[in-house]
């Protein structure tokens, strides 16, 4: 317990001091890591805990991004408020998709297809809505003002992304400790057996989906005000949904630390392959990234974090 408290305090201190030590390249890397860890954590609630694979989280992300941007551009509403509107809208969409999917008993691949299709519909709508900028995309003017979610320099973004990640991890921690957490894992393992034991699987899957979608939308707002540019063919693609999902899967789904670890590993992996394999053959770094990813998934199918836990348990002689 003491060891835990001390090491937690140590990690906290390092995280607070870190952005002041490192270069802006590394600041950016850390922000991206936290931000993707945040999204993976949100995805994890539905995909990891409840075991319902979503390949359409880009839709919730984009609803969050576009809603807060449009509200700020056209009505001057601060993104700090606008992001809650985006979260509510994303939640409503998730409940719609969830109702269709779960009420009609879509499982496995069929549910995945439903999430892909609904995100694709959102992308097509976004491409053709003038208020969202269509193909040209939506530009946000940079006018530094923390009240408008616009910050000078990278350090504030570092702390905001760290705050987001901490909040999402706290949400997952609370879920894990509650009845909901046990039910979601049971649903992941065996839906029929859960039903037989009195678990309202429809209701709890809906809850997981709504919470996951709302959190993802907050992440979209962060992205909008970090990049200042939104385009459906970047933010609203399946690629982006995969980017979110893959971090949770590599790190270990259904665990709190998995998505965080996965995000760190993939960010470092991406940076590593850019540094060492770029410059020669075009695109080699992307290929190497893919190869390394395959290696990780092949040898640690449950994810890196569960593998580490198993290793530590074996080393300390406790049974798994």
């Amino acid at each position, binding site marked *: 317990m003491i060891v835990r408290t001390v090491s937690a305090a140590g990690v906290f201190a390092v995280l607070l001091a870190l952005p002041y030590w490192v270069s802006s390249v590394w600041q950016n890397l850390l922000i991206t890591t936290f931000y993707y860890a945040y999204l993976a954590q949100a995805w994890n609630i539905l995909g990891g805990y409840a075991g319902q694979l979503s390949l359409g989280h880009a839709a919730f992300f984009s609803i969050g991004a576009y809603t807060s941007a449009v509200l700020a551009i056209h009505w001057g509403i601060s993104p700090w408020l606008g992001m809650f509107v985006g979260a509510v809208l994303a939640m409503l969409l998730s409940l719609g998709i969830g109702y269709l999917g779960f009420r009609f008993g879509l499982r496995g691949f069929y549910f995945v297809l439903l999430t892909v299709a609904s995100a694709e519909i959102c992308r097509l709508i976004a491409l053709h809505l003038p208020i969202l900028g269509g193909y040209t995309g939506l530009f946000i003017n940079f006018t530094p003002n923390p009240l408008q979610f616009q910050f000078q320099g990278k350090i504030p973004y570092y702390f905001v992304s760290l705050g987001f990640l901490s909040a999402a991890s706290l949400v997952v921690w609370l879920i894990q400790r509650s*009845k909901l957490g046990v039910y979601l894992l049971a649903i992941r393992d065996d839906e029929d057996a859960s039903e037989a*034991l009195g*678990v309202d699987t429809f209701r709890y899957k809906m809850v997981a989906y709504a919470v996951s979608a709302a959190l993802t939308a907050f992440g979209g707002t962060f992205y909008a005000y970090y990049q200042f540019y939104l385009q459906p063919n970047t933010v609203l693609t399946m690629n982006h949904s995969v980017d979110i999902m893959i971090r949770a899967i590599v790190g270990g789904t259904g665990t709190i630390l998995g998505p965080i670890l996965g995000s760190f590993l993939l960010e470092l992996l991406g940076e590593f392959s850019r540094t060492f394999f770029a410059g020669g053959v075009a695109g080699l770094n992307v290929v190497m990234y893919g190869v390394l990813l395959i290696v990780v998934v092949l040898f640690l199918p449950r994810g890196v974090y569960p593998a580490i836990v198993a290793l530590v348990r074996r080393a300390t002689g406790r049974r798994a």
Partner: protein
Amino acid sequence: MSLLTVERVSKSFGGLKAVSGATFTLAEGEMLGLIGPNGAGKTTLFHLISGFLRPDEGRVRYAGEDLAGLRPHDICQRGMVRTFQVTRPFPRLSVTENVLVGAMERVAHRREALAIAEEVLALTGLAEKGGHMGHSLTLADRKRLELARALATRPKVLLLDEVMAGLNPTETGRLIELIRSVHACGIAILLIEHVMKAVMALSQRILVLNYGELIAEGSPETIVRNPKVIEAYLGEGYSGLEG
């Protein structure tokens, strides 16, 4: 007073009539056996009673209430719970967590649920395996876990689907004792079973299902002497002792 009433329940799959006009009751605190050859419709009948399938015709009532339109979790919450013939432990949850899932619906706090879980694990002889993962259990322990999870929901009616299948005689003997002690707590039990020794030892009354139809009903002694049952299921020369 009958707790569970099944009235003229039928279910077809395509051209196959899996259950046809099944009618019977289960009284409070009764132990009722359900036997019949493979494919007779026993498990389908369980699915119909527990809400996993909807009857094409007929009605299932529990404590006076028509169960039509209720989903399995509703039925479980009302006090009737089933186990699965092919055991379905939550593989990536520990044994204790497996049982917690059943215990949580009745109580507000995890701590109370844990107390129920520990009590049930002790009763079913799984207390020392609480930390094992669901996927690592032996068949005998999986069967116990099915029973433990079901008991954790605090049922009034327990539907047991072949909990003895695949167990050796020692394990069967132990499980018979366990089911007896569960029954002694006042829980009504409907028991699908092929292991005749268990059916005979446990049941107060036996139903026989063949090709979806109930062909006989009565005390264990009269059932084993019933010519129709001998022809359809038991075979010539069954004395009711071996098995």
